């Protein structure tokens, strides 16, 4: 049970770009492992997740999937805003063969949106869509869950509850968290891949991986700004992943532990 990418090549969106987004990329994710993917902006984190779950095709190489893999959570673009919340949940349930009528209620309770079940999504407050996207993703049984950006990307009021829910679901499952915030990875992952120049470099210990990533970011910054301009305060903030996402990662990670 695992995901294996061997010698994968992807040109990326800009076909005329001088370098491919991924070139001879090798990644292995075992079931039950909590793996982080660290990468700067536009380094291909989301593309890697799409390759893992099968919604993106590689131009070359081999991808083996021997597990039930989620879509990149929190994906909400497939939700129909003119349909009710319950209809959206039922659609996903039908798609994944869940005949249980209680599924919609369970998802609504999980996301704390039971009061909105019979309301068209477009008439719901913004947080309903966020919570629904998270609950649908983690509410289905997968072997490996893919998280894009954060483990619980929801509104402030729901963060603690989301952290509990995510931790409950992830206790016996594997997940991949792709983010640009090393702090999130440090708190919630056991190993890490760092995306750099079309390759993914594996680190069995998160500490080494995040250190390498921070060095990589500062080198990139130096290159962009010139040799005299190194050590910009903003760089430190980004590399540490502080701010909103960081706090959220802490909540989820402590709940998992």
């Amino acid at each position, binding site marked *: 049970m695992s995901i294996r990418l061997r010698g994968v090549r992807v040109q990326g969106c800009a076909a005329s770009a001088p370098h491919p987004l991924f070139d001879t990329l090798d990644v292995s994710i075992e079931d039950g492992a909590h793996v982080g993917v660290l990468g700067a902006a536009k380094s291909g984190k989301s593309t890697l997740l*799409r390759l893992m*779950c*099968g*919604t993106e*095709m590689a131009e070359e190489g081999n991808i083996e999937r021997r597990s039930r*893999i989620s*879509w*990149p959570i929190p*994906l909400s*673009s*497939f939700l*129909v805003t*003119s*349909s009710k919340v319950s*209809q959206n949940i039922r*659609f996903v349930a*039908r*798609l*994944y*063969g869940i005949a249980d009528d209680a599924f919609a209620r369970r998802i609504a309770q999980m996301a704390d949106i039971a009061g909105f079940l019979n309301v068209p999504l477009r008439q719901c407050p913004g947080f309903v869509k966020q919570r629904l996207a998270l609950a649908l993703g983690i509410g289905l049984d997968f072997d490996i869950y893919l998280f894009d950006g954060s483990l619980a990307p929801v509104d402030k009021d729901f963060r603690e509850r989301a952290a509990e829910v995510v931790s409950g679901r992830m206790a016996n499952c594997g997940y991949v968290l792709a983010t640009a915030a090393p702090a999130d990875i440090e708190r919630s992952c056991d190993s890490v891949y760092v995306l750099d120049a079309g390759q993914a470099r594996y680190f069995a210990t998160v500490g080494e991986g995040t250190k390498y990533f921070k060095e990589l970011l500062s080198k990139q910054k130096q290159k962009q700004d010139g040799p005299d301009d190194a050590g910009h305060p903003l760089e430190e903030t980004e590399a540490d992943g502080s701010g909103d996402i960081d706090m959220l990662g802490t909540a989820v990670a402590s709940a998992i532990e």
Partner: protein
Amino acid sequence: MFKLLRIQFRVLSALTARDIQSQQANLAFGFGWVMFDAFLAFGGLLIMKIALRGFSGHGMPPMTFLVSGLIPWMMFAQTYAVCEGAIGKGKNLLLLPIVTELDLVLASALRIFATYLVMFLVLAVISSFYEDVPFPKFALGIALLFVSMSVMGVALGFFLMVLTRLYAPAGKFTGFFLRFGMLFSGVVFQITSFPTSVWPYLTWNPMLHIEELLRSYWFYTYQSPIGSPAFIAECLLGMTFFGLLLERYARRRLRP
């Protein structure tokens, strides 16, 4: 194999149900308006047909004649036109690993099939009572031909999809030829309306064979001189194989 088929069926039924729900979803009675549109299109052609008069042969009253030929053709025409659109419309669903482009096209084709099947049955009953036409001679044959038209529509749709992805302006020409082709596919005029000298130039068209056989299987008074089930079966197999091959090629090499 059986498990995969079950998953495929499950995905298709979920997508079709969603497709039906989302039709005209901003209006009350959403899907009802889709049916209404189809009835209007049929009504317009029926009025034209009655006004022109005399093109259907003996024992083939105009309304039943049109129901037997035009409704399956309308389904075919909508099906081949929907392929590219279904993929474009369902782009967000392609982010779910369980959904493929083929699923989206098949779900849309099934939605169109269901719409026109209902319309076909309703209008067939109405026209048969109104024009006092007996129950079709070979109902199973009609059902099989109806399904064949839907499958051929999907196959042709994939061909057109690849053509337009390779060369975008191709759609301008294909649209013209396909609309023109309706006149020579037995939809409004049966083959006996044309001089026998032109038959060899028309009988390559599998749609003409289907339409001719539909009339032969429906009316006791009409026996098509050209309709060949074997030719239809060959075309159906060939087109389906070729269509699926093109879909696979487009999915890997020709992203929209």
